[in-house]
């Protein structure tokens, strides 16, 4: 069968324990997951300012944050791209974007691009749903928000919401990993 070399063969799988980080938010403050003492978990979303798939999912991210942070699962957005490759990915542009779109969640800059390889994110948008357990932050779901990334009107399967609801009900998540088209994460190869 096809053999191909992937740059990131590591990264979190379902059941992995996610490490915390300390990244700068668009409001200037540093943010870590441990700051959220009352949270039951997190919806980590690797996203960026210009990818049309990211843009198409923004209002869904806001909606998810508004509903699920009330019950312990806030959205944490992270821009994993290197602005040296595309200046649209700069921190200044992130501030503008967050303000224009009315982000209700932190939008963090992955300075040095150290966090996204740990997660194994390969594109934007890319979701990792984490749950606080005794052993640490467990990865419970990876992939897309729903089955129609580019067009909210055509969604028929709400993968991430189903996963969140299962966690809140103490049930097993049925669909733990999904895939969607996205923009590859921009890494300086030099």
């Amino acid at each position, binding site marked *: *069968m*096809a*053999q*191909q*070399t*992937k*740059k990131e063969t590591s990264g979190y799988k379902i059941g992995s324990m996610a490490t915390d980080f300390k990244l700068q938010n668009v409001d200037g403050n540093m943010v870590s997951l441990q700051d959220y003492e009352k949270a039951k978990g997190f919806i980590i979303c690797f996203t960026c300012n*210009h*990818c*049309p798939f990211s843009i198409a999912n923004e209002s869904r991210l806001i909606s998810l944050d508004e509903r699920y942070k009330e019950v312990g699962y806030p959205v944490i957005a992270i821009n994993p791209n290197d602005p040296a*490759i*595309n200046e649209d990915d700069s921190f200044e542009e992130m501030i503008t974007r967050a303000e224009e779109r009315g982000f209700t969640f932190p939008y963090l800059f992955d300075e040095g691009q150290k966090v996204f390889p740990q997660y194994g994110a*390969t*594109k934007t948008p890319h979701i990792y749903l984490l749950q606080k357990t005794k052993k640490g932050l467990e990865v419970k779901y990876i*992939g*897309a928000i729903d*089955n*129609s*990334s*580019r*067009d909210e009107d*055509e969604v028929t*399967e709400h*993968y991430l919401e189903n996963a969140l609801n299962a966690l809140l009900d103490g049930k097993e998540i049925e669909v733990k990993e*999904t*895939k*969607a*088209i*996205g*923009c*590859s*994460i*921009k890494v300086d190869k030099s």
Partner: protein
Amino acid sequence: MKFQLLLAFLILQLTFIATQCDAQTAKEYIKSGNQLIAVYDFDGLDSLLNQKNDTTYVVNFWATWCIPCVQELPYFEQLLEKYGSEKMKLLLVSLDFRKKVDQSLIPFMAKKKLKSTVVLLDDKNANIWINKVDSTWSGALPATLILNKNQRLFFEKSFTFEELETEYLNSKK
């Protein structure tokens, strides 16, 4: 003799039509200048690629808004120029949003005057078809599939021309 010639001619014509069979599997056609862009759902695209012949298909998944995709397009054009006379078919499969082709794909194609065949993949069930292209594909663009009756090679990466040529030649071994 005349009858045999006529028969030969008819068979030739039918063969020609059959090779243009692409037409039957497209959902619709979009006009772009003098060209028509065929729009496929995944099953249509798949049947286009799984024809029982000696052709090597080089299939690049890209979009006009994907910068690394646009940067490597000239290498695919170069490959076509160098090897297009062999049994090779180059398909640039655009993932541009169907509703936005007038603002994105159509002007892009008019500007770049691409020689390669451009088709649009319009199928919302990405979670299903991404795995059908290749189970290791995360869904990130760009990605390239090189396949013929002997090999199926998949690459989730950007290419230089040299790398692309190497993999194309590998597929024919």
